[in-house]
């Protein structure tokens, strides 16, 4: 009597038959007859992930033989994979530095595809939505200087609203992210204390606050913690139904984050030749103060013409039809002029 009992030997035979059959199919179909199926894979920032995912799947409906996969592993991860040539394209919220670009053989073409705003959600019982927060107030909350919701700074900007004597709990990202980079960039632009203190970065040494992982973690923590205030992407406050603060912009106006306010902010800066621009504190009466572009990173040279063609095609689709659905998903559609500029730059991708 063997360990390899009858039933075991049966299963082994069946499994090997299946493996042989699959291998046979594989070999038989290695010369593809019919339409060539093009597969692209990309990785990078998680901020635009839902939008890119939607674009690629809509594009797939129109062109069934082109499938594009995108996974949000983080802006830094995307740049690493691009440098290692394990993906066909990448995406990043923080545009690549010259040093990073120089590490990629053949050069990189950066293309801003969309933009988004970072909002401050809060949880203060009995406070109205759209609470006005002056600059000193919200920087102070993250610096640990403003510790109560009924602080005079906040009360002065909101006459007629009784604010409770509730401690402020700042909620920030536990993991490194491009969102933190953009938010801290803005804080450093409006406050010297912040610039000298925690500074700008994908993760900083936060003076106060509790950490939550990813945007949904921040949304969940805000919802559960009375007195919490945290920064997150606009789509998440909509879904979690958290009230959003109106922030004081450079011109002193209190602006709620709407698509129009975001577009006004983007219009305040022109895109240079290399399509990289930062907007840490956009001027303009109607501008929402915290906005950022997000970039698609492509090689300037592709070995496979079919891949290059498919990529350029889908980018052009995203810049035209794709922009129509950006707003409903919580992103800011590109201004017309910018979209045209980016579409022209797509021609830099060869072949």
């Amino acid at each position, binding site marked *: 009597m063997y*360990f390899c009992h009858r039933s*075991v030997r049966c299963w082994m035979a069946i499994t090997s038959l299946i493996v042989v059959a699959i291998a046979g199919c594989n070999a038989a179909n*290695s010369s593809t007859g019919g339409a060539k199926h093009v597969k692209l894979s990309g990785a990078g920032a998680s901020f635009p992930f*839902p939008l890119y995912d*939607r674009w690629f*799947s809509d594009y797939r409906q129109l062109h069934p033989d082109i499938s594009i*996969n995108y996974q949000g592993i983080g802006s830094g991860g995307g740049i690493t994979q691009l440098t*290692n040539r394990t*993906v066909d394209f990448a995406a990043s919220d923080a545009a690549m530095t010259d040093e990073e670009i120089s590490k990629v053989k053949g050069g990189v073409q950066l293309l801003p595809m969309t933009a988004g705003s970072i909002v401050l959600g809060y949880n203060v019982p009995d406070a109205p939505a759209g609470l006005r927060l002056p600059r000193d107030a919200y920087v102070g909350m993250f610096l640990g200087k403003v510790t109560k919701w009924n602080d005079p700074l906040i009360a002065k900007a909101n006459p007629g609203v009784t604010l409770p004597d509730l401690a402020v709990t700042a909620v920030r990202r536990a993991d490194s992210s491009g969102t933190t980079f953009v938010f801290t960039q803005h804080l450093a632009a409006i406050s010297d204390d912040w610039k000298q203190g925690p500074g700008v970065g994908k993760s900083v040494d936060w003076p106060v606050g509790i950490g939550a992982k990813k945007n*949904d973690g921040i949304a969940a923590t805000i919802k559960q913690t009375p007195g919490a205030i945290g920064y997150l992407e606009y789509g998440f406050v909509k879904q979690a139904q958290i009230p959003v603060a109106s922030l004081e912009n450079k011109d002193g106006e209190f602006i709620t984050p709407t698509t129009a306010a975001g577009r006004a902010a983007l219009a305040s800066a022109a895109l240079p030749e290399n399509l990289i621009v930062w907007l840490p504190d956009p001027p303009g009466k109607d501008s929402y103060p915290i906005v950022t572009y997000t970039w698609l990173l492509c090689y300037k040279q592709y070995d496979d013409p079919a891949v290059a063609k498919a990529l350029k095609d889908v980018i052009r689709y995203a810049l035209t039809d794709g922009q129509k659905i950006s707003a409903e998903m919580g992103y800011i559609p590109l201004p017309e002029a910018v979209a045209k500029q980016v579409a022209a730059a797509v021609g830099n991708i060869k072949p």
Partner: protein
Amino acid sequence: MSTHQALRDPFEGIDLPRLEKSIYSPRAAFSSALSVLTGAMTLVAMLPLASVLAMLIWRGGRRLSLALFTETPPSAFSAGGGFGNAILGTLVMVGIAALISVPFGILAAMFLAEFGPNSKTASAVRFCAKVLTGFPSILAGVFAYALVVLMTGSFSAPAGGVALSLLMLPTVMLTAEEAIRMVPAKMREAAIGMGCTPTQLAWRVILPTAVPGILTGVMLAVARAAGETAPLIFTALFSNDWLYSHGRLNLMEPTASLAVLIYNFSGMPFDNQIELAWSASLVLVLIVLVLNIGGQIFSKRSIKL
């Protein structure tokens, strides 16, 4: 003496009540109390499971349907969709991981328990296996990335399988070693007495007897591997397509998996996706349960006693 007197009451003279256990005696009370305590602890331990399952069913149960197994993940703001490709991807990658780690683990455990239990090599191997138990899952992904992804130039299912096998290996090995050790000495001695070589002893006596214990280890390892996200993000990425398309099995491409799907979708601000994430968690738990029960039935059949 008459026959009557020969049949005497055997319990005559013995005070019967003292032979019964009195629950007021301290030792008996201690024993009963501990029984109740452990019973209560078992029930309490099932509460988190009930709570997690309740949460999964409440949030994702209504999406359970055949569509989940046949459709691919939806994009934002589209309704419906499923995760059939993720189920297949998880099964394939856990299968590859098991194919690597189970033979590896059992053979190494054979050496540790049978063929060289007290050698220096055995101490070193045990030590290494214990160090591997504390290996963070994200590092397994990084290691497999350097080993497989950078070598082959793309994310792939085998890379994910290799990363998962690193996580499964210490559990399988250490559990198998314990299980092999627990085989009674008399069975070993009987076989040797009949002229078995050590290999025949291993295959025909030890392994069949140790199968339940080894299976526990394998099932624990498989359950863990099926639910790990971090290693798969670095090695298999994700995909919205099936593993096979146009009749070909594409293993060397980014592969979907349930764990990464849950990680992605639970963090998206769209209700459809969040619901799918919860139903995916439920499906994953059910798959591991089915594998567990299947393994137990299979192991009972393959041992003829």
